[in-house]
């Protein structure tokens, strides 16, 4: 669906200042049906990459193909593409209904009014349909972007920081709509800082730093079990002295939770037998996306 090969984007910043390399040998592949997350710290080049996918920035070097074609703004290929920007730059003088009719009207001819109303209802904007966008909250504007997607039913949707600044209820609605559209075949590229959100919706992610992709993989692969560490939960008498290879912190219901290096597992089992503590659980540690993210950014790609 999207293929970026050795993309470099250099911004000139005047005569005296050094040019800025926003993307530096950026490579990424997004497959059809993916919910693909672009992650990275501020200044990693996520937004620049998205602008390149949309054709708003032309790469200094390298090539980008979206649906097999070079992205050209406003071209016919955008009939199957939707973009919901981070800061919605909508035409604020329009009402919710007029804006939806306008944006959807750029894709589809003569949209029945009932279809527009249905999309507005689906995103929960019915009571605000005649409110001008300059009086709408950011969440309402984001919903309008999604309503446009619902009408035009795109194959590929770009979401730039879609849930930033939104309340949890809207975030949940947003997530449900994304997953529903994905089930119907839409591919999503999501640029986000909120790792827990990405973890819930994305099936593949790319972690970027300094304008290049550090890791690109299945989310499950990134969040794989850490075979070096076990997480154990146990209960024992007060004043119990633990072996030096492990640490534990109090957990719920008088339990204690600790991390155990896997090479010390046999020793720990012997300790359990001899000390008389009650072992409640012992499982390989599974890292979440946040841990994987920091691990990758600190030490390069994971094995």
């Amino acid at each position, binding site marked *: 669906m999207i293929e970026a090969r050795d993309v470099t984007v250099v911004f000139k910043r005047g005569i005296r200042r050094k040019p800025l390399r926003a993307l530096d040998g950026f490579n990424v592949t997004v497959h059809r049906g993916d919910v693909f997350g672009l992650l990275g710290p501020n200044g990693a080049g996520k*937004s620049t990459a998205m*602008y390149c996918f*949309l054709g*708003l*920035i032309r790469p200094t070097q390298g090539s980008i193909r979206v649906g097999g074609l070079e992205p050209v*703004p*406003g*071209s*016919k*290929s*955008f*009939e199957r*593409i*939707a*973009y919901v*920007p981070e800061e*919605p*730059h*909508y*035409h*604020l*003088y*329009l009402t919710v209904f*007029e804006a939806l*009719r*306008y*944006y959807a*009207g*750029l*894709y*589809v*001819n*003569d949209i029945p009014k009932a279809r527009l109303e249905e999309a507005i209802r689906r995103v929960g904007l019915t009571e605000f349909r005649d409110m001008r966008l300059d009086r709408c909250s950011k969440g309402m504007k984001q919903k309008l972007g999604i309503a446009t997607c619902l009408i035009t039913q795109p194959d590929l949707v770009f979401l730039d920081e879609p849930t930033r600044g939104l309340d949890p209820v809207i975030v949940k609605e947003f997530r449900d709509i994304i997953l529903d559209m994905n089930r119907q075949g839409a591919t999503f590229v999501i640029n986000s800082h909120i790792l827990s959100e990405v973890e819930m919706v994305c099936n593949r992610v790319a972690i970027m730093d300094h304008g290049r992709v550090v890791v690109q993989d299945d989310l499950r692969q990134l969040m794989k079990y850490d075979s070096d560490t076990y997480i154990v939960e146990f209960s024992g008498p007060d004043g119990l002295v633990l072996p030096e290879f492990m640490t534990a912190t109090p957990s719920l219901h008088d339990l204690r939770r600790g991390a155990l290096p896997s090479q010390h597992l046999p020793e720990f089992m012997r300790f359990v037998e001899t000390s008389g503590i009650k072992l409640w659980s012992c499982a390989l540690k599974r890292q979440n996306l946040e841990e994987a993210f920091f691990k990758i950014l600190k030490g390069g790609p994971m094995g």
Partner: protein
Amino acid sequence: MKAFRANLIANLIFFRRNRLAALVALFICFIWATTLIPSLFFVSARDKFQLIKMLIEQSQWFVMFFTASLAVMTLYYNFNQRCFKMVITKPCPSEIWLLAHFAAVLLVAAVLYMFVLAGALILFKVWHIPLQWGVFYVIAEGFLQLVVILSVLSFLVTVMHPFLAIILISIFNEGTFYGLLVLLSAALHQATAPWVKFWYGAANVATYAFYLILPSYSLFEKKVPTLHSTLRMGWGDLKWLGLSFLYTVLAGALFYTLSALALRRRRHT
């Protein structure tokens, strides 16, 4: 076609809801009301014809000022608020958007010119003055001039800040360079020292080149001087209107193409 229609409607809604445009319209109406309307009631029978002429001229100027303001405001709003990014990330080429922008402004201009024409015709009828067909010529010519001005102004706004664009179009027009040419020619005639003559000559050539390059807003106005003073039109005068039309189409197409190219090169992130 669908994109053109959607953009046209969005632009018309912008005009309707823009408070600054409303303010400009109110200001124009105020000036119009305080200066022209009282004279309608106190004018002598002999001066009625002159008054109609003045009304047409003034109204045309007001329409030009108002529609040029609309054109600048629409473009500036779309660029400044980055709404344009929302348009070109949909299946709508920037050329179509630009065309819809022109069409919306010209539609408003055409409606206002119709009002001016209707007003003039009503006054001819009410004051029992024989209708002069030159009225149609003058209004059509004014509309064509407006098309050229709007296309140049739109191009300038796509490449620079609107404030600079307005200054540029107000100062650097063919009238300025014509005046400069006259001054330089007189200075060249008076000069005696060879190096002074050389510099005046060079400046004269450069000014003449600029004079030729700059678009003209009233290319054939001087060809029909009596028509403008008497509003009497002969069939032969239509030739100049036809040529004006041709020039407007060419100039409009040129500046539309330049604007479209500038839009493509502009960064919209």
